């Protein structure tokens, strides 16, 4: 089971993104893997795509995602409390609440690998795909 972060989705969606080639290469190794993401990631990606690319691409992202078997995990109030604890425990102010949400979801669901290029996950004990 692998959790996908915003930068992986965005990297695949924008051909000039710094991570586009790596994201494409990693994607090819995911055949047969169970994939999941968080609603916070979906929010970030759709918003970024809409802001900086086209609204159509943002909507296609949402439409295609809803037709796929990628699991979207929603945070309830119980999980949100754990996310806040995680957020407070981060030393860097550059770690977003979305990053913390992803880490808490991953831990709760026993996910060890994350499809992302953000080193913060490694610092928190997760393995980044390469």
């Amino acid at each position, binding site marked *: 089971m692998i959790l996908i972060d915003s930068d992986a989705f965005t990297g*695949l969606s924008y051909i000039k993104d710094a991570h586009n080639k790596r994201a*494409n290469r990693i*994607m090819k190794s995911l055949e047969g893997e169970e*994939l999941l993401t968080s609603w916070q990631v979906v929010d970030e990606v759709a918003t970024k795509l809409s802001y900086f690319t086209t609204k159509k691409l943002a909507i296609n992202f949402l439409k295609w995602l809803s037709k796929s*078997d990628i699991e979207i995990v929603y945070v309830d109030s119980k999980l949100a409390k754990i996310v806040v604890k995680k957020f407070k425990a981060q030393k860097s102010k550059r770690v977003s609440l979305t990053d913390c949400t992803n880490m808490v979801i991953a831990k709760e669901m026993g996910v060890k690998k994350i499809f992302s290029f953000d080193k913060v996950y490694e610092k928190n004990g997760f393995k980044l795909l390469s």
Partner: protein
Amino acid sequence: MEGVDKSGVWCRYMANLVRTQVMLEPDLLAELRQLAEEKGLSVSEVVRRASRSLVAKLKPKKMTGVEFLRKLADNPFKGDAPSDLGSNDEHLYGKLAPDYKGKK
């Protein structure tokens, strides 16, 4: 609600079944009744199983996760946007985010 059906199979019955009316040709109904009798099921259960099977067969199949990612990768934005769009949250929450003022 749980119980044992006519064939002795332990079943879980949905408590919220809804009664509905279906018009069937007499010969189809006769076949359903015969099949139900042979399998030790009620006609309703046979109809439920057949319906579930048909729904599963006709329902559009979901893309796999990789198929979805490939669809994204095959339809990328080719215009100009920040090259660190994916990795820099400043584009979303910080000083690099678009200014809404006066824009629709």
